[in-house]
């Protein structure tokens, strides 16, 4: 169920900037709109909205959450096959496939190399075919 932005929106563009699938559009200082064809109900817009102007799929207003409390992906490196599906979903470019540790190393895996860019949308967790990614609060 797609999310919805109410009249309380002040057009701060925070949601449009963080939306992991670019589903939110709107000019600055004007009410933003969610593209219902694209929204994946990840809830990131609700967490960043300073005015609590985002309703979730059931019509409940979302509460804003401070950024350090957002969950981040933790990769089970033994399970991960480095197939790269999570990387294709991550628009924030927080994930990548790790580099080999020595010449000829073939055991690579997905890694969170830019944790501060991660928006905690959990698309990587949902789409990992092997269940190798789990979202957790990471204490930096």
């Amino acid at each position, binding site marked *: 169920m797609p999310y919805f932005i109410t009249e309380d929106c002040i057009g701060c563009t925070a949601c449009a900037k963080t939306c992991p699938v670019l589903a939110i559009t709107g000019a600055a200082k004007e009410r933003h709109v969610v593209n219902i064809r*694209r929204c994946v109900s990840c809830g990131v817009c609700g967490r960043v909205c300073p005015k609590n102007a985002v309703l979730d799929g059931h019509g409940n207003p979302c509460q804003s959450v401070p950024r350090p409390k957002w969950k981040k992906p933790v990769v089970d490196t033994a399970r991960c096959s480095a197939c790269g599906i999570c990387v294709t979903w991550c628009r924030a470019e927080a994930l990548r496939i790790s580099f080999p540790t020595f010449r000829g190393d073939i055991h690579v895996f997905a890694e969170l190399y830019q944790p501060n860019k991660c928006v905690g949308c959990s698309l990587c967790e949902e789409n990992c075919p092997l269940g190798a990614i789990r979202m957790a609060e990471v204490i930096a």
Partner: protein
Amino acid sequence: MKTPTYALIDLNTRASSRYEIPESLYRRYIGGKTLGARLLYDLTPAGVDPLGQDAVVIVNTSPATGTGAPCSSRFNMTFKNVLTGGIASSNCGGQFGVLMKRAGYDGIILKGQSETPCVISIVDGRIEITDADELWGKDTEETQHAFPKIYGKLVIGPAGEHLVRYAAAVSGERVAGRCGAGAVLGAKKIKAIVAYGTKRPEIHDREKFAKYVDKWVRFLRGHPMTGESLPTYGSAGLVSKANATNALPTHNFKYGHFKDAHAVSGETLADKYLLRNSSCISCPIRCERRVEVDGKDVKGPEYETCGFFGPNIDAVSMENMIRLNYLCDSYGMDTISLASTLAFAMELKENGVADFGVSFGNSDNLADIVGKIARREGVYSDLANGSKWMSERYGGKEYAMHSKGLEMASYEPRRSVGMGLGYATSNRGGCHLNGGYLALLESVGVLSMDALSTSAKPAFTAFFQNALEAISAAGFCLFSAQSFVPAVLFKIGPHHPVTRAIGKIATHLGFGVRALLWMMPVLRFNSVFLFPHAEALRLVTGLPFYTGSFVRLGERGYNMERFYNYREGLTKADDSLPDRLTQTPQDPNNPKTVVRLDKMLPVYYRIRGWDKDGTPEKRTLRKLGVQA
């Protein structure tokens, strides 16, 4: 049942509409190249010009594409072959297929011709066609950078714009290379097709599917071929194996052994140039190479490129090869057809027929010439037409290394005669993958059948052609099938008596394989060792796919493609190889080193259920459900 939804795009009017695939077609052809062949047959009349107004191009995916199953990011392009006039299907592992599916379409059918360069964007199920004059003339890398990073792109380069007959379409770092996929898009003036969306593909039994994917990935990663050899050396690792069995085409297929093959092998590539390995989306094998040349991080060459820009033109420079590979991708050209045509031009010069400024042993000036071919400048316009056209113009048909018009891949058929039969009978021309890839059992794999014997080869060729067709149709990479040789044989090695004995026995198992082909409908089992694809397809679609019915799907597709070729006027005479392979022994002292097509073709036709002229018989087509 959810059937695939295609988009029908008319470029004349720039209008698009939804095109639902009927359930009866979906059940029989599933998707990818088999469904593509059926649609192409139904939607085009006989004898259309592949680059003309009436030509149809189908870009489609398969049920498994983008589901997260191993090696399942493939999409397929089906169109009328620019080089052969028969059917063409080009399979690519780029991100376009996955993102087209996320955008809500399983395929697109392109009709008509645009007057001005255009870009088709399929975003969230909406299709828009916009002008792209500013992109026309740019290379594939620049063109892809013009779109958002998260989009899936399928673009052509200058070669496609200039209708080079073997131009390729590029998606990310991967290429739909063969048969002129770039040329047909260029003829329609489509510079790029981009897709983006967030829909997830439908899976019939999600839980069981997830468990099976887990099991399959573990199996692939534990297998010596897919878990060790391919990730370490890539497909280029086959160079030294082929060289050891004299199956590495050298000097335009004149010889089968190159004394400096080590310089262009996968081992040297891994030792000196490799930065890391990479992969298509959702692939645990990771055979793609990332290499460094001139301070740039570029895609490394595959086996075919190593063979053709190395031994086949007598060149030993790995750097030049990597540069040429990069250039071909950025111009959007097929390295196999281009390099084979260049080798033919070199031999023309050697024989004093024509001089294009290229000669054996020198790859330093090729970068310049490749650019001229891509832009069809002056005399190089001839080279852009492929080796069949060249041999008709300049002579030298006996050493123009193509079958039906499509240049052969880098396996020397005189040292793997089954591969020779595959090249000759392959529906899209001299293709190793469409031709059954018997070289893997004869000369480059761990298991070696008698490579010179014609015994059992027709049966094995027919079986593997069907199997590879089915794997492609289901949406998987063919490398995922490289694990079918038991891991234990890799551990004991190719020279162990047991491995040798199995190879020897296999050479005489023709009747066994023929019986197997006949028994297909009753083979109701699935195994992760043989065709894991069948089980994955069963779980994704909910249709009863087992090993037997899965290979039968491939047989149906193969006959459909053959039927299309028959309609377009390709006959038994086109199931041929150049005289160099069928008349001149590779080893002058061993008369057995020729491809005895005359011996194998009649048996092959009989196994396939085709008549003496290679036409599918009515009862065969009825049995397979191709024609009522």
